[in-house]
């Protein structure tokens, strides 16, 4: 018996062609495509920020904007709140229930920051951080509310190689250890996608293709697209 879909997309039209797919727990989906192919637009629909004029999206059987607590979102431009510190940004998801900051919460926030290699930045103002650090803090914030599904737009863009390797290992580990049920990520970094993702959604002019990692390895067409590191 197959598990119920974590994410289900049916008939969303992007770039003139309808996109439909299902994602099950334990999967990591990399959305690949050239600039302007609609990767960020698709992610905005999946995270519930935009409503598509046609088609439906459901996360754990609910519309995404009604399933906020199940979804962690890492935005393309990090979207950290400028008038807050790193700590406050990562603590933000914990404030949904009106919680007052307490010792336990501090531990949780610091733990998340340490996991993405930013523990030492906790009390810095966001505007003082480098682009790469901002991205890691944004990842820590996206994971703060203990979501089941992570939607990440360019999770490793602007990261130094060492930090990229850390994030790569961290993301794969989250799904591997069932701390997250799944990840959908848009990226231009095909090497990174090749190492981490289990499935690829390739947005191209005139259509899209959803391929599994194993199939991509066998098919010369996708192998070329997903790049030689897969072979």
């Amino acid at each position, binding site marked *: 018996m197959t598990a119920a879909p974590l994410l289900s997309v049916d008939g969303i039209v992007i770039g003139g062609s309808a996109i439909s797919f299902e994602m099950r727990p334990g999967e990591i989906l990399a959305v690949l495509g050239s600039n302007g192919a609609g990767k960020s637009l698709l992610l905005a629909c999946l995270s519930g920020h*935009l*409503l598509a004029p046609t088609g439906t999206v459901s996360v754990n059987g609910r519309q995404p904007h009604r399933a906020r607590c199940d979804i962690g*979102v890492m935005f393309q431009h990090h*979207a950290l*709140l400028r008038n807050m510190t790193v700590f406050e940004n990562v603590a933000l*998801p914990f404030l949904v229930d009106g*919680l007052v900051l307490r010792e336990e919460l501090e531990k949780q926030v610091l733990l998340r920051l340490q996991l993405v290699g930013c523990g030492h930045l906790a009390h810095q103002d966001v505007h003082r951080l480098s682009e790469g650090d901002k991205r890691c803090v944004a990842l820590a914030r996206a994971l703060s*509310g203990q979501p089941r599904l992570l939607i990440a737009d360019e999770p490793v863009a602007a990261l130094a190689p060492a930090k990229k390797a850390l994030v790569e290992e961290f993301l794969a580990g989250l799904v591997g250890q069932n701390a997250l049920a799944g990840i959908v990520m848009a990226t231009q970094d095909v090497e990174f996608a090749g190492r981490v993702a289990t499935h690829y959604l390739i947005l191209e002019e005139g259509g899209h293709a959803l391929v599994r990692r194993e199939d991509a390895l066998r098919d010369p067409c996708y192998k070329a697209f997903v790049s030689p590191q897969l072979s």
Partner: protein
Amino acid sequence: MPGHARPAKLFEPALEYSAAGLLGAIFSVGGRCLPRILLGRATIIEREVVQRVLGFLASTAPTSALTTLVYGVAVACGVFTYTSGPDAFGVLVLPQLGGIFLRYVIPFAVANLVILKGVVGLTSDIASMRVSQEVDAIEAVGLHPAEMIFAPRALALIVTAPALAVIGVYAACLGGWLVSWIGVHTDFAEFVAIFVSSVSARAVLIVVVKLIITALTMSVIAGYFGFLSGRAEQGFVGRITTSSAVMAVLAAAVVNVLLIVLSTAFHLE
């Protein structure tokens, strides 16, 4: 027959921010702010309200004092030049100067300040947060951006406007006295006594209520424009801020006329 091409349907934001919703956010946050602070259960939103109120007051109080002082001098000078002489000024104008200031000078000066600093600041803040996806990020964690970023800023305008009016009364009084001292050599204590006698508690209350309603209207306009859905594009923040300021000026005038009509109809003034 040539048909009109139907516009393509667009991707729409999942959450809309209506004027009624923004008004609700102000009342919701405003209503629970004081009890939570008093009970020591202040969350990040209540702390933000306190910071915004203090920050806005500190940044506008000196400008407000200076503006109303200048307005006070200008109005007193204008009235002085139209009276037949210093004696007429002392007998006819002085006893009414406080009322004139309170009714015409202070609401105008404070509303201008609130528009220039508050409305422009609020709209550009929210619009730039929308462009940089900060609003989306707040939505993503399940918090309400209208309560988190709009309501504290709006409450800062609403709470500060009456406080600026009080500062304005003193500053305008000083301005009026300067003209009076130069023109008819009025003693400061004597001037203050005459000025204060022409300012009734009811008149002050009416001005405070007027300013609260004006600030409330303007903050909702500012928030509405700030949240207006639009994707990031060049000049978006500047354009939306200009529209918001123009609409706020218009709204301030309309609200003022409506309040004057209402207060006259109910014999409040």
